């Protein structure tokens, strides 16, 4: 199959970017979107042009690196699918496909489709961990955890931090990401100990990165490749309110 690609090209963060149009011919419908871009890059290299820069690593939907907005939707907007898992057979032969980087102040463009998502790392550093001081690991079954809690925590822990939620949200809000990271720890006994401090710090870090606010549109949930539910945002709102009431300042710093 053939496609016309409109791809965002931008040399670096300081340069002005623009769309460039490429013809992709002989696309195998069984390719993934990234493999298709690899082929386009091969032909660009053969012509002596700069290849399109994009992030990827695992290419099986678990690392969250392959950030790109395809036809206006992060990862192409298919249910539970990352760009690396997106099959070319889902496109129409002859279609024009527009590819853009995540657009958010907190995710500045590094080059072409690559953005700097280290804002997410700083949010995690602010509190997305469990402090375990010393000692050998005890037997896992010593701490009983109800099955529904374990499953709920696992649902939240599915988040791969790809940033599609931010990219899809009309407010570039990182609430779904933060909600998933706060929840998967707070639901389990090991993480519950630090839950108040964690949520306060992570929300503070989220705000200082310059993400927007949640207006409950549900776009994040719809594009999330790991189908993280909006219910976790409810939980985050609840956790934060409780933490606000419990700590009047000192303990959280």
């Amino acid at each position, binding site marked *: 199959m053939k496609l016309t690609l409109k791809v965002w090209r931008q040399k670096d963060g300081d340069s002005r970017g623009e769309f460039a149009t490429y013809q992709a011919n002989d696309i195998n419908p069984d390719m993934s979107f990234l493999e298709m871009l690899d082929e386009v890059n091969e032909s660009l290299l053969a012509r002596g042009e700069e290849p399109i820069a994009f992030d990827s690593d695992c290419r099986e939907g678990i690392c969250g690196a392959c950030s790109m907005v395809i036809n*206006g939707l992060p990862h192409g907007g298919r249910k539970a699918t990352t760009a690396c898992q997106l099959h070319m057979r889902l496109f129409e032969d002859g279609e024009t496909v527009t590819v853009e980087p995540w657009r958010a102040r*907190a995710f500045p463009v590094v080059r072409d489709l690559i953005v700097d998502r280290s804002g997410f790392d700083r949010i995690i550093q602010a509190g997305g961990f469990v402090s375990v001081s010393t000692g050998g690991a005890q037997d896992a079954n010593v701490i009983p955890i109800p099955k529904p809690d374990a499953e709920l925590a696992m649902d939240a822990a599915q988040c791969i931090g790809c940033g599609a939620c931010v990219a899809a949200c009309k407010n570039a809000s990182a609430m779904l990401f933060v909600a998933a990271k706060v929840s998967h720890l707070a639901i389990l006994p090991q993480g519950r100990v630090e839950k108040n401090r964690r949520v306060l710090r992570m929300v503070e870090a989220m705000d200082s990165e310059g993400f927007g*606010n949640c207006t*409950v549109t*549900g776009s994040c949930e719809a594009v999330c490749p790991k189908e993280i539910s*909006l219910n976790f945002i409810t939980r985050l709102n609840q956790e934060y309110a409780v933490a606000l009431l419990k700590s009047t300042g000192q303990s959280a710093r």
Partner: protein
Amino acid sequence: MNTLNRRCSSSLGKKYVMAVTGLALFGFVVAHMVGNLQIFLGREILNGYGAFLKSKPLLLWGARLGLICLVSLHVWAAIRLTQDNRAARPVAYAVQASISASYASRTMLMSGLIVASFIVFHLMHFTLGGVDPEFLEFRDGAGRHDVYRMVVAGFSTPIVSIFYFVGMALLCLHLSHGVSALFQSLGLRTGHWVRAIDLFAKAAALTIFVGNCSIPLAVLIGLLK
């Protein structure tokens, strides 16, 4: 205290302000509608209700001041949040696609601002007499303010009634999203409550639209005169 202050003006803090003031305003809108629907019980009852409210100046002014504070806080938070949201995406997408976001959820600021301008007109119309000063002079047989006559006179002009229909349609849109969003913001929209809350929001918004519009409509078709 300083930390607490900073926390309360965080993104989530402002959403709590939005939600709490939105909830209180929603409560007022419902009570206001129920009170006004007494017009269908006749002039006697409506004017009596009006006189009753006026006879409790402390309560009346308390409520008015409270409402002014609520609206101011709500609009302040709305504008601050919207500014943050716009700043968070300085470069727009070339292809604008929206997924799963309802029309109501994408237009909250616009519907809210139109509702605000509607509120100003509504106050001019029936509270301050800015539209027709005569309205406040109407007296019934018992010497009370003739609210009934004022409402009928006010809605007899079709263009005015049409503006009320538009105002209520936008309030309905605002609340169809807002009432479920407020439960989400307060962390109460969980588990099996999600669908019930979303349904309640839509039903409540529609009820408010139908209830409030029934009055100008009844005047226009001559049911109330």
